[in-house]
């Protein structure tokens, strides 16, 4: 058991012991830590909520004995979360001889910076792209850069800089240095971390068993996976989080198991890691995850965290409901599987008992005859929380509706199925005039509110239209 954390910065191991480290607490963010150093002022704070990307850094870690590079928002990461990883900032991109990295060079040549404040973050996102995609497609570039807001350039030169620079087979001076970094990474102990300061306790268990017993001992403790939601309580509301169990160090929660009939996704798998695994068999989930937050968020956020927070909008919850997914909960008393439909019971309330952890999500493969689709309506298509979202599923028997699931987010205090509409449709012909009649039942199912993301009227119309859209799009499939 350790009370200190270790990570690599500037190619050296940094040990931080919170006991004799007064300036920072275990819930201090990586951003604030970096900015306190005279040598890492390049990382910028733009919003402190993971919506602008000015604070983007890259975390390198060992996965299957290889180093992976991921762009993340440093404003949302608590310091203990980078234990055992390499923290790479914009200051590290030049070669030891002082030569600029290809992404830096092309950003200069193509006038990719104007005021320059977003630039270090953009450079880091582009660096992660460089390390992961040789000759990336426009879609991959967009994907890598969506989480970086720039108010000056209009992005075109930035996209071109990515196109121009990411062409060297992902090789750069970091590649040469990998053996050395791997050695350092391996030298960092993987054991559990328990940090106790005068007013906080932070646990970072190394195994699931340990996490479950910790949860048993501290049932009211806050659980974090990627912390993208919980971190806001620190960065935006300046709350003191007294006790935290951080699951991000548990390898057992990071597995994805695909079977003949289903896929089981560990609750600690990042959203971005799920995407390629569901592309083939769960296209509606794939679509929804692709527009979930931005790369930097998806690299941190976990499915377990998303379900645990039970947001009423919860972009992915409706589509998981349509897939008839179940949540697997574990505690010292055993394991149980709850259909997602029954999991959420109120505004940000679930049936999870205080000593239970979400350990995985089980999604059965839809039967061959069924169609599943997901929809998201938001002011801005990318990097925006839905005004409303939906996950629909349909199975027909001789063009009569045999099974229908119409799950909506953003229409009530919880993500909810349109049961009256569903009932109306069951057994009926799946045709335009029937669907047009059915959508009138949406009004009976939901009484949405007006808020900052949209008026009740807009939500009602859009909710109806989505069902109709499902019909129109389904026509081509059936």
């Amino acid at each position, binding site marked *: 058991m350790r009370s200190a954390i270790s990570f690599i910065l500037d190619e050296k191991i940094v040990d931080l012991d919170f006991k004799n480290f007064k300036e920072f607490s275990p819930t201090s963010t990586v951003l604030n830590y970096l*900015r306190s150093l*005279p040598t890492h*002022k390049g*990382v*910028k*704070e*733009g*919003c*402190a*909520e993971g*919506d602008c990307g*000015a604070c983007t850094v890259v975390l390198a870690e060992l996965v299957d004995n290889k180093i992976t590079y991921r762009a993340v928002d440093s404003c949302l990461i608590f310091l203990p979360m980078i234990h055992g990883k390499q923290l790479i900032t*914009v*200051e590290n*991109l030049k070669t030891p001889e002082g030569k600029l990295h290809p992404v*830096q060079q092309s*950003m*200069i040549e193509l*006038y990719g*910076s*104007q*005021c*320059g*404040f*977003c*630039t*270090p973050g953009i*450079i880091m996102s582009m660096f992660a792209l460089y390390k992961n995609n040789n000759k990336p497609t426009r879609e991959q570039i*967009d994907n890598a*850069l*969506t989480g970086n*807001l*720039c*108010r*000056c*350039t*209009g*992005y*075109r*030169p*930035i996209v071109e800089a990515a196109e121009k620079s990411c062409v060297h087979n992902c090789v750069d001076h970091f590649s040469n240095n990998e053996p050395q970094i791997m050695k350092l990474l391996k030298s960092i102990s993987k054991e559990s971390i328990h940090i106790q300061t005068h007013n906080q306790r932070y646990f970072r268990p190394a195994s699931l068993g340990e996490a479950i017993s910790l949860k048993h001992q501290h049932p009211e403790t806050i659980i974090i996976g990627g912390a993208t939601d919980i971190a806001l309580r620190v960065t935006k509301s*300046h709350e003191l989080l007294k006790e935290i169990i951080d699951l991000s160090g548990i390898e057992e929660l990071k597995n994805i198991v695909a079977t003949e009939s289903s896929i089981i996704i560990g609750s600690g798998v990042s959203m971005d890691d799920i995407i390629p695994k569901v592309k083939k068999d769960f296209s509606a989930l794939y679509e929804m995850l692709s527009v979930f937050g931005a790369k930097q968020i998806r690299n941190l956020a976990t499915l377990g965290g998303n379900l645990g927070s039970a947001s009423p909008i919860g972009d992915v919850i409706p589509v998981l409901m349509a897939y008839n997914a179940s949540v697997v909960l574990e505690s010292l008393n055993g394991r149980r599987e709850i259909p997602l439909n029954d999991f959420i019971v109120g505004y940000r309330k679930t049936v999870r008992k205080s000593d239970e952890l979400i350990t995985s999500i089980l999604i059965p493969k839809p039967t061959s005859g069924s169609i599943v689709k997901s929809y998201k*309506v*938001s*002011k*801005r*298509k*990318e*990097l925006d*929380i839905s*005004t409303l979202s939906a996950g629909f599923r349909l199975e027909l028997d001789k063009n009569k509706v045999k099974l229908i699931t119409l799950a909506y987010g953003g229409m009530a205090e919880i993500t909810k199925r349109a049961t009256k509409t569903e009932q109306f449709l069951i057994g009926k012909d799946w045709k335009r005039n029937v669907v047009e009649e059915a959508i009138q039942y949406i009004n009976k199912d939901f009484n949405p509110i007006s808020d*900052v*993301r*949209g008026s009740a009227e*807009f939500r009602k*119309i*859009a909710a109806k*239209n989505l069902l109709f*859209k499902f019909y*129109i799009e389904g026509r081509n499939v059936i």
Partner: protein
Amino acid sequence: METQIPHDSAIGHVTGEAIYIDDILVNEQLLIGKVVYSQYAHARIKSFDLSEAKKVNGVHVVLCYKDIPGHNQMGPVIKDEPVLAEQDITFIGQAMFLIAAETEEKCREAEKLIKVEYEPLDAILTLDEAIEKNSLLGPPREMKRGDVDIALKSSKHVLRGELRTGAQEHWYLETQTCLCVPGEGNEINVFSSTQHPTETQTLIAEVLGIKRNEVVVEVRRMGGGFGGKETQANHVACWTALLCNVTKRPVKIRLFRDDDMIMTGKRHRYLTKYEAGFDDEGLIDAVKLEFNSDGGAATDLSFAIMERTMLHADNSYYIPNMSVTALVWKTNLPPNTAMRGFGGPQGMASMETVIDRVARYLKKDPIEIRRKNFYGLNDRNITHYGQTVENNRLYIIYDQILKSADYEKRRKEISDFNTQNEFFKKGLALTPVKFGISFTTTFLNQAGALVNVYTDGTILVNHGGTEMGQGLNTKMQFIAAAEFGISIDRVKVNATNTSKVPNTSATAASSGSDMNGMAVKNAIDIIKERISKELAQLWNEKDVNHPSVPSSIIFKDNFIFDSDHPDRRISFANAMKQMNLRQVSLSSAGFYKTPTIGWDKIKGQGKPFFYYSFGMAASEVMIDILTGQYTLLRSDILQDVGDSINPEIDLGQIEGGFIQGVGWCTTEEIKWDTKGNLMTHSPDTYKIPTVQDIPKDFRVKLTEGVPNPVGTIRRSKAIGEPPFMLAISVWLAIKDAISAVGNHKIEPEFSLPATNETILLSIEKIKTFKVLKTLKV
């Protein structure tokens, strides 16, 4: 000379080495400042108690208005903005108290202990309420030509309507920040992220009750400005200076993003009423406009902004009979302020709405109506305020873009697409921009510079403009190098500093390069004249029989030579050593004031603008009529930049301005609740464009081979603001797509921004209308 010079800070930007105020290393004496602001939109402070807050360990001072040694005023033009509230609270976000403490945490702790007793009062939170309660911020203004009422009566067709355009948050990436370091006696050194260092200096002097020569304001760079740091950076600077003055320690205030969004003003929202009279062909004879803007709780620059609206209400069109009435309304919201376009966008969106409606009414393509009503080349070329539209490039640009954008063909394709698709509709629009260049407050059209040449042949340029990303310093660097005939790496542009170049105007109104470039050139001309004279003399001392004359001396390729005697040649660096030995001053101030302009504000007549900048854009969109979501498929832009000093930087201004305009027209929506709280106070709810919101096909071109005839610096043209308004093409393309839902038979209800909600609700109205019509039949 090579014009492809990268941004002078580009290396600093990409390596993270460029220093912004929050990055300046300060010793451990630094205190963190925090502004405590009101939570009521309108209230009277009955009492307050700071004693508990002051007791917090680590808190150095907690200040209220009584602690201000000088004037409690920071309004830039009209003195109606207290630095710290006394009794009256007029908006949520108004500063009341200041805290300086050793850490941010201590500041927050102290803030919680401040007790305030308020008496809440009724607040005015919308334009409609302000109008209803006659809450004017100042007297209305009017500009007129002809008799619009008579003309409207005799017009064959008349259309009336209303347009609402929304507010816009600047969303500079670097929030408002200031660092003050105390000097000797009253001296104070201010590092401010301000577009207007002189005004920052002035206000700090007034607030602290000290002299202006005791305040030095320095601006290395801003992390974006867009107008948001023209007047409102002064606020943070005054607050920081107050804390620094009392504690005698360095103090920094950096606004947290949400606080920045809550406390600072935005682009003005407008309600415009219009009436237009025209004939069967769409030739417009009369337009009557009434602009109502939401000024917020204090004046700020609202009247200058409204003036620019009035001066751009014509956009590119000759309207024989025109009347423009303008009213600025007072509400209980943060004082609204300058933002790129400065009232121009609201004026142009209104006129473009008129044009679009006329076209739809007459069932003609809007471009036909536009071209018909363009200002003429030789006649129909006088604006409603009396300035002649000279060097009109509308027709050239129109002809070129029509071709390059393949307008006619695409119009046909879109029409076919819309016939074939029930659930997706496409729209296309081509809109022009004619933007007047100069501050309309004429005396502001002046700039200064200080150029130092050192004896190693390097140059340090100081000028009064500020760098906020627009590439001003890069252009100044180029100008200095070109004028001295030396390579660019010998020229460095200094941080803007009020002790180097005093009494400057804001870097605003797109005028930064025009004016400061000329001032830099003026300083260089003076130095070159001294050098030429001295060199001629030096050469003549050696050979009296073949005299060198100063006017023949040329500065080129890092050398200086006599064109009459090419053997008389000296390297620039050597020459500077010689000059120093021969006691020649190698430093000079430079100055410039814009010639030929003059504007009578009272009569609303004259020549407010040195010249006009022209541009056009054609945009195509597709909307999903079931969700209201839109995709920007293609935008073509052709912008007149004269002889560009740096084409890549100008391109960056065009694209960046355009995309910022697209944000204003589409996803950027500001909402307040019924108490006056800003609901969209972070990027979680306020949506500026991302990389995925730019046109799928984006083709931007600069006009070529058309130097600015009016004698600007190197015959270039201003570029900062005009492209913003090209985004109106996207907005009207969306309207065109909505209109297609009703086969262009029903005029869509439309406002700005066209969010997915606006689009969907407009479509819904068209659908309902269609159903009703079927029922009637």
